[in-house]
């Protein structure tokens, strides 16, 4: 993959593969292109050259199939401040699949934010908002998770909870790609790191 941003050759010949059951963490200093790499892989940023393949097929050709298998968590949480936590979650998951009210409540409980379910998102802390955004990923039932700095604003308990969710997803045959400053699941055999250098 090659990507230029203005005059800057940001991604210079990146080649990577991600398999089921694997976590790949992209690390590197700020501004090195971690987010751009993730956005390219998610199909949100067109590249100058290179291709992204999902199950052997170019994602530009099988875009619908790919997006149905993909969950993307950006820096922004994609939440509406005016809606309650539960309303936000119900809408974002309902776009993808049928979901029962019970499943929504259970996921909020799992991420320990069920006490905020009827509060407008505006009233939530930054960490609680992040947990709510993660709840959407958990409920999406997709194979590939692309997560841009997923543990931003999470406290120690939140990070532990999130690591458990990622570990479970990997066990079930999912694949996770993250951009991170702090490594997750250190020392596990199915965890790899890709370092981008300026």
């Amino acid at each position, binding site marked *: 993959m090659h990507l230029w941003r203005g005059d800057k050759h940001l991604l210079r010949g990146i080649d990577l593969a991600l398999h089921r059951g694997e976590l790949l963490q992209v690390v590197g200093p700020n501004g090195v292109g971690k987010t751009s790499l993730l956005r390219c892989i998610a199909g949100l*940023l067109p590249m100058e050259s290179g291709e992204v393949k999902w199950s052997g097929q170019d994602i530009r050709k099988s875009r619908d199939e790919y997006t149905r298998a993909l969950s993307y968590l950006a820096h922004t949480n994609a939440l*509406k401040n005016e809606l309650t936590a539960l309303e936000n979650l119900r809408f974002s998951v309902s*776009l*993808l699949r049928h979901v029962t009210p019970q499943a929504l409540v259970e996921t909020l409980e799992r991420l320990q934010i069920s006490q905020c379910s009827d509060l407008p998102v505006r009233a939530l802390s930054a960490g609680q908002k992040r947990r709510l955004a993660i709840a959407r990923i958990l409920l999406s039932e997709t194979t590939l998770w692309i997560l841009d700095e997923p543990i931003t604003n999470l406290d120690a308990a939140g990070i532990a909870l999130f690591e458990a969710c990622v570990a479970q997803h990997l066990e079930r045959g999912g694949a996770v790609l993250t951009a991170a400053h702090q490594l997750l699941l250190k020392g596990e055999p199915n965890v790899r790191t890709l370092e981008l250098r300026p």
Partner: protein
Amino acid sequence: MTAPGLLGLVRLVIARDLKLAVRHWDQVVQPLIFFVIVTTLFPLAISPALDELRKIGPGIVWVAAMLASLLALESLFRPDVEDGTMEQWTLSGQPLSIMLLAKTFTHWLLAGLPLVAISPLVGTALGLPSSVWPVLAISLALGTGSLSILGAIGAALTVAVRRGSVLLALLVLPLEMPVLIFGARAVDLAMHGESVAGPLNLLAAMLLLFVSLGPIAMAAAMRISVES
């Protein structure tokens, strides 16, 4: 995993946007208040003599409606793009064009339909006889629908541009001129007791054209804005 069908999707988007609008009602009533105030200014500035106002009344109502619909466009897609919602929509595997059309329809319900409803009142203030009200309302209903769709295409194109509202107006207003011309013409013909079928048919045809092709343009413009 069962994704919602098209109808379910449309219902979902409309319900969400209506819920958001209820919690933001102060923004929702702005175009309506603007429409009423602008049309009320003319009798004050020109002359309260009804026969003078009657001559320019149709034009005033239509220009005010056009500007009022432009007023609400800025906030049509911007909040969803800024908070990352639109990015999620493009990745949802659902047809973006249908979702944006549903959003635009809700926008029309909130910004266009109230203008139609209040048009008899505004018409009275400008001396338009009650026999003209139905034509005024029908022309506005058809026309504001077209204005919403044209505006939504412009809004999708300029949403990634910082302070894009001036650009949006420059882009959209020239495209909206045919709607203005035929809308104002229909009301004018009705005042003179002539047949209004021509301009109304043309307004309806334009609306059909925009409803069928507009969503494709909106989705393409939105993808360009999000993928940058």
